[in-house]
């Protein structure tokens, strides 16, 4: 069965995408079948590290929004009172505020007049491409859409070709994070060696533990901060699988779009040993 590794960590900009692409390539170089899933659907960018991608499929993600049939609405307000997201107001008739709606469908059920129906709208796209020896599935949430959940779920449903599923997760520890790491076999925390990285990582760890997901860590930009990340890991009993030192020349290469597995010999060796550690852990 495929192994799902979620790269996440709370803070944005810690190197999740960089290390997800690097780790995916390290698996490829060991002859493994890999699916890389870009779940940061508000800002998907893993594809930028690949030069030879060939698109194999593209499909729309639909979600249903409630629509009130004005002539049947009696303005009783039950839909509004039911909606915990305050996405419905009742002035003369009920009005659905799409940008607040989480598509739970509750209003449709509670309307005593049957005046609310659901209409499908396109909220995003899932694009599958192959290249670099792997399969890359990216989710794109349309601008103006508030809820990334359905797009994230579709990417996960589509990206199942590999033995190793490398999940590049969105920052934060809220809904999008939860949706992304749900069902992962392990969460590989990509944590920056700064007080900010440590702070946000603590929150992500709490959520992951609540969900029953094992957490391991890669410390990124190691040596540039105050070492607090390592103290957090020790306190929480989290194993640090790798430390990626901060190297200006590597960052220069990445900034030119060179993929992380090719950017430096040192980084490649770290990614290979990270891959081996994960393989040993999973396959015993």
């Amino acid at each position, binding site marked *: 069965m495929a192994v799902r590794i979620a790269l996440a960590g709370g803070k944005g900009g810690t190197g999740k995408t960089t290390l997800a692409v690097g780790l995916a390539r390290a698996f490829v170089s060991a002859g493994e079948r890999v699916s890389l899933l870009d779940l940061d659907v508000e800002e998907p960018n893993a594809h930028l590290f690949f030069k030879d991608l060939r698109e194999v499929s593209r499909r729309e993600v639909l979600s249903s929004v409630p629509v009130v049939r004005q002539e049947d609405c009696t303005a009783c307000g039950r839909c509004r009172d039911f909606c*915990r*997201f*305050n*996405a419905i107001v009742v*002035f003369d008739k009920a009005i659905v505020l799409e940008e607040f709606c*989480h598509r739970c469908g509750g209003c449709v059920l509670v309307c005593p007049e049957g005046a609310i129906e659901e209409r499908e709208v396109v909220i995003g796209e899932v694009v599958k491409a192959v290249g670099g020896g792997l399969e890359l599935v990216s989710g794109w949430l349309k601008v103006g859409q508030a809820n990334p959940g359905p797009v994230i779920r579709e990417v996960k449903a589509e990206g199942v070709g590999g033995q190793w599923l490398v999940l590049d997760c969105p920052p934060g520890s809220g809904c999008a994070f939860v949706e992304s790491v749900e069902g992962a076999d392990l969460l590989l925390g990509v944590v920056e060696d700064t007080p900010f990285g440590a702070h946000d990582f603590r929150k992500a760890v709490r959520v992951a533990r609540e969900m029953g997901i094992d957490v391991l860590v890669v410390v990124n930009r190691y040596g540039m901060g105050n070492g607090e990340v390592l103290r957090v890991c020790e306190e929480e009993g989290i194993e640090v699988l790798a430390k990626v030192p901060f190297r200006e020349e590597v960052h220069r290469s990445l900034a030119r779009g060179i993929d992380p597995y090719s950017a430096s010999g040192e980084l490649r060796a770290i990614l290979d040993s990270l891959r081996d550690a994960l393989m040993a852990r999973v396959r015993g």
Partner: protein
Amino acid sequence: MRIAVPVSAPSKEALMDEKFGRAQWFLIYDSQSGRYEVVENPGFEASSGAGPAAVQTLRNHSVDVLLAENIGPKAKDLLAVAGIKAYEDYSGRGEDAIREFLTSQGSR
């Protein structure tokens, strides 16, 4: 005309709350009766949609005019749909904001 101001405590002497959607109280002045009343905004701690909930509260209390320090763009749109005129850049005590508004209206 009924005029509402978000306030930080349930009294007409209270200072305005700089947040519209997340104010706990609205001070409402009725120009016909000359009376003040304070209503609670049930959505003040809502995790989502505090703006819509606040607009709903004003609408339920038949408010015509809202005076606030600032109002977000979504709330502004919804206030327009609700037929409530909204004015920004008011601050200080709630009662004073209402008086200032009435004076400016009278001088027109």
